[in-house]
Structures are given as C-alpha cells and as structure tokens.
C-alpha cells in the first residue's frame, strides 16, 4: 500500500543528506563488530550522560532512537509482536516492546545490527518506564546497570540540594566507569566534549528559533525530527557540532530563496507529543494539505531544554550535566510543561496547538487532555487532540485522524473569516 504522503518531497536536502550520512556512519560503526570493538553503553535520550561515557571510550546506543528508526521504516511490528509473545502486554510502551523484541531477535534494525550492551545507564529523567526497561535489559545481559536518579523538576530552576544529589551520583558513576574500564577519568576530555555539545546545542536552538519567522522557513516538528539525531546521539562529537552549521546555512538559503516547507503557510502550529512514527508520512501529509506548518514543538526538546538555557557548560561540567538532566522535557512538572507550551504559542505566533497523544506512553500522554482543556479554556488557543501510537502501526486509524484534522482546520478557517473559504476537495 502506498501512503499518499510517500510521494511528497522532503524539501531542501543538503542537511537531510548529511543527516542521513551521519546515521549510516553511526550504524556502520556500531555494526562493525569484527575486531575488538568499542564497549557499548545503552542510554536513554532524556537527560542522558553521553559525554561522560564517551569520554571513557564507550560508544552509545539509544534504544529509543533505534525503535523510532524501526517504526519509521515500517519494521516495528514484528519486534512488537515478538515482545508480546514473551508476555509484554498491549499497553506497554511501544519503544520497550520494539527494543526487547529486537534484542531477542538478534538486534537487527533497518540500518544494521545493534551490538549488545556492556553497560546500562538509566537516567531516570522523565519516565518511569525507563527503570523497568533497563531492569529487563540488565536481567537479559547481566551487565552493570547504573540508575541515575534525577529529581522531578518542580520549580523553574533546579534547587541546590537536587543538583548536589545528582552531582554526587555522577561522581559515583565516574568511579564506576573507572572501575569497569580501568581508565582514569579525563576531565579535559570531558570538557572538550562538552564544548562540542555546547556548540551543537546553540546551533540547534538557532535552528528551532527560525520558526518565529513568518512564513516559517522550518518545520519544527516533522523536519526537526530528522535533525534531532545528531543532537541526541552524536552529542559530544565534532560531527554533531558541525552538522548544525550546515543546517544554519540551509535555513539562511531557504529564507533567501523564499523556499518554505509549506509553500503557502496558512496555519501556524505548536505541536506537542511524540510523533506517530509508523505513519509519519501520512500524518505529515495531512498537515501539508491544509497549509499547516509547525513553527514550534515540544518533542524536539526531549533530549534537553536547551532553548530554556539548560546548555552544557565546559566550565561547570558536572553541575551543567545535572541541570541538563533535570530539565529534560518529560521531567518537567505539568505546570512547567503547560507554561512552556503556551509560551511557544505566544512567541512563535501560532494559530493553534496540536497534541498527539501516544496510547502506550503515559509519561507524555497522561494529562494531555487536561492540557488541551487548559489551552482552550484558559488560554483561548484552539487545540486539537489526536491519538495513535509512536511504534505500533495497529493504532493508527487514518480515516479517523483525517476526519478530526479536517474538522479542526475547517473550523479554524471559518473562525478566521466566517465568509468565503475554499471547501476541501475530495
């Protein structure tokens, strides 16, 4: 079956090409297990400790990203079914099921094989499922598991006792790494990596803030998802830092040439929630048909709320890592999350908010209905709530979703001018 979205062009491509290359190289490196390979650490995106483990010579695998790569390539279902056959219920997070299914099936992904972990780092930063997932991996592989307990973010800025707690754990983590690798901690190396991270983060923030322009030269949800790979997976490397220069150049070129992700920008959106990866193109296409472009989104912030000032700082290595970990998007209390979304809507001059709920992700989703209610009734922002899954193609009902989107955009259109507006053609 071809999805209508499949034929749609990705838009300007040089950064996309570079990103594709980075993805391929990364997986090729991982798969290259011929000789003595680098040790591998499995990590979670939210509040991750990439720089620290990289400074000890580890390569990093993010099962969440592997899972979304599988889903977007329509290869998640067999993994999910395999996990279900082992007893994982229908309601368990699709990322978990994809990963554990895939591990049982030998680690095959659309890009290459994933090596098993030598170290498991569970940054408990925003999702309780992380703990369960890493427990299952630890039980399967029997390798060391480090749980970094990251306090939930309940104030605008982390409190000093929270930072102290996380930093104390980071020091214990470093001691663990020294013991397991036999290497001693190289503070200079960590600083160099954090400097690369800092540069990448600043570039990423610049890219995302381009959505403020009218029309927006970027697609802050669908396109940004492609550009998230370096900031999440390759952080700490020069390649990641340089990538955002390419992105920068491209955005500038687009503005100059008047090339926009949606040729005629009709609706500016803030999008909240994890994308429906198995139907990514179809979903994106539903938006494009209405001339809707996301100018800001929360999902690209799962790796870190860099735009809110939580950047890595080579001069305060562990403290800045601790702050960064606490500020992971899903580790924000609902009060903070709500305010952030409303501020995006205001600052990026959005017409509406679209929330995509994930049936199997409670961390993101539980309470999105209340968010919707708050946006509509207390902020006066039209808001659409849609629901499917980030991994499981069985939960995407295209007709239903399209019907809701059509109705929503119809009503937005009509509310802006109650007279003549084009009807949707068949």
């Amino acid at each position, binding site marked *: 079956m071809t999805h209508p979205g499949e034929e749609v062009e990705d838009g300007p491509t040089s950064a996309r090409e570079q990103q594709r290359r980075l993805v391929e190289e990364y997986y090729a490196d991982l798969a290259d297990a011929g000789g003595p390979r680098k040790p591998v650490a499995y990590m979670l995106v939210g509040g991750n400790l990439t720089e620290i483990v990289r400074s000890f010579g580890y390569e990093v695998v993010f099962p969440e990203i592997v899972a979304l790569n599988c889903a977007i390539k329509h290869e998640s279902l067999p993994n999910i079914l395999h996990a279900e056959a082992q007893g994982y219920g229908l309601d368990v997070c699709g990322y978990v099921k994809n990963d554990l299914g895939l591990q049982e099936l030998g680690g095959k992904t659309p890009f290459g094989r994933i090596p098993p972990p030598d170290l498991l780092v569970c940054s408990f930063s925003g999702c309780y499922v992380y703990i369960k997932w890493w427990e299952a991996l630890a039980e399967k592989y029997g390798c060391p598991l480090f749980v970094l307990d990251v306090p939930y973010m309940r104030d605008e800025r982390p409190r000093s006792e929270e930072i102290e707690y996380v930093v104390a754990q980071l020091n214990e983590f470093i001691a663990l790494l020294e013991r397991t690798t036999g290497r001693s901690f190289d503070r200079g190396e960590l600083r160099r990596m954090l400097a690369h991270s800092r540069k990448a983060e600043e570039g990423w923030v610049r890219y995302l803030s381009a959505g403020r322009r009218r029309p927006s030269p970027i697609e802050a949800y669908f396109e940004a998802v492609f550009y998230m790979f370096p900031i999440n997976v390759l952080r700490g490397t020069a390649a990641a830092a340089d990538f955002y220069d390419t992105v920068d150049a491209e955005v500038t070129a687009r503005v100059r040439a008047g090339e926009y992700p949606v040729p005629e920008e009709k609706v500016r959106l803030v999008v909240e929630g994890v994308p429906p990866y198995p139907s990514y193109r179809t979903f994106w296409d539903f938006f494009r048909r209405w001339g809707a472009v996301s100018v800001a989104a929360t999902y690209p912030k799962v790796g870190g709320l860099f735009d809110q000032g939580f950047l890595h700082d080579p001069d305060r290595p562990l403290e800045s890592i601790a702050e960064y970990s606490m500020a992971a998007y899903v580790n924000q209390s609902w009060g903070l999350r709500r305010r952030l979304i409303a501020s995006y809507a205001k600052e990026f001059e959005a017409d509406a908010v679209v929330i995509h709920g994930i049936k199997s992700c409670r961390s993101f989703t539980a309470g999105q*209905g209340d968010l*919707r*209610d708050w946006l*509509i*009734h207390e902020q006066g922002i*039209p*808001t659409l*709530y849609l*629901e499917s899954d980030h991994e499981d193609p069985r939960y995407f009902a295209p*007709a*239903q979703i399209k*019907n*809701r989107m*059509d*109705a*929503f955009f*119809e*009503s937005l259109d*009509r*509310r802006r001018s*109650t*007279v*003549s*507006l084009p*009807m*949707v*053609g*068949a």
Partner: protein
Amino acid sequence: MTLVAGVDIGSTTAKCALIEDGKVVGRSLNPVGVELVKDAERALALALSDSGRERRDVRAVTGTGYGRFKVTFGQFTVTEIGCHAKGAHFLFPATRVVLDIGGQDTKAIKVDANGVVIDFAMNDKCAAGTGRFLDVCAGALGYDVSEIGPLSLGARRPVKVTNTCTVFAESEVSSYVARGKDPKDILAGLYGSIVSRSLSLLQRVGVEPEVTFTGGVSRNEGMVRTLRARLGLPVNVSPLSQFVGAIGAALYGLERLEAVPA
C-alpha cells in the same frame, strides 16, 4: 430561490436534505449498503421525489459524513462535525453545544453564536456507547431499535451495564434477560451507560446552554430523557434530528454559492 442539497453518508444511514429559502423542502433516509456512491445517488433521488423537484433545480450538492468522498456528483465536501454544528444552529440558533450520536461515533461539538465550530471531541476507543451499541442491545432484548425509546419509562432499579464492549454488552444484556430483569431496568441501565460516556465527551468541550442533541440516537426518547436528567438542562431535539448533518451540509453549499457567485 436557491435549492441546495446536503448528502450525509454515515456509517449506518444515508441521509439527504433539500433546502430552499431557509426551509427543508425534501429529505430521505436509507440504510447504507456496500456501494456508497449508489447510496448517495439514491439518497438525493429520493429526497428530490419527496420534494417534487428535479435534479437540475439543485444548485449545489454538498457531501458529508464518513462517506463524504463518495458523493462524487457533489460540488463540496465538509466534515460532519462542521455540518452538525451548522445544522443545529439553523434549527436552534441559540445552540452552543451539540451532541451527535450516530451509528458508530459520538461527538460533542462546541459552537459559537454563528454556528461555527470552536471545539469538538469524539469517542476514540471503540464502538461502545454509540448507536450500534443500542442496535445490538435492542436486538438482544428482542426489539428493534426504533421501538425501545419509550420502554425505559418507569424503570425503578436500572441495572449496571459496565461492559465497554458492544459485543460483550450484548451478552451482559442477555444475561440480565435470562436472570429475569425487567427490560425497563435494562434499557434504563443502557441509556445511563451511553449518557455517562457522552457526558465525558461533553465535559471535554464544556457544557453551556443550549444543548442540541442530533444524530439517529436522538430519535430515541429514552436517551433524550436520560440526557436531560443527567445534564440537569433542557436539551433541544428536532423532529429532523437525524438530518442535522445533511441540513448543515446543504447550508454550507448555499453559503459557498453566495460567497463565490457562479
């Protein structure tokens, strides 16, 4: 003097309404079958013969409902959410909230003073709590769905219907029948269960008077009564309630014609 038609191809029924000079001058209602294009054509043809007009008199045909893209002979398509809002506003201009319960889904729609949709919410999980649910349960009680409306009157001890699944609710109903429960109480239990699901949807958009109840299930007076009681508010129901979507569609076509003179 403009005659316009709205064709609403739902999951269960095909409806057509003809409007002229702000009046509904013809209508038709049929079950949908497997050939939706034909059903749509038939809906229009029957409405025309109901009104005594000719096909060529119709200035615009607008399709709505799940099968709106099957109204291939029409000029426009609009979602049924927009149409129910517009149709309800037409029939009851003070409408602020529309509850539409059709064969397969339930929608709560909030509208502004012009009948424009501000917000809406739909059931998402399954067919539970919709017209189909009633059809199936009516069957289990040995009635047709068109007969069960008045039967819950005088229920004393409504049963609890907790199954969220239409199919299992059917067996829950059968088991109540087998246990000799009064059909009154069973129906009251069913209505209560559908209404409480609808309230949860209404809650999402916020309840404000006036509330207008549309869609095929609004023809069931037991449902209307239960809804009124649970909301504690008057609820508008038109004799044309099942046609509200089609009426709204026709009006959309009219508006469109007026906006873009041919």
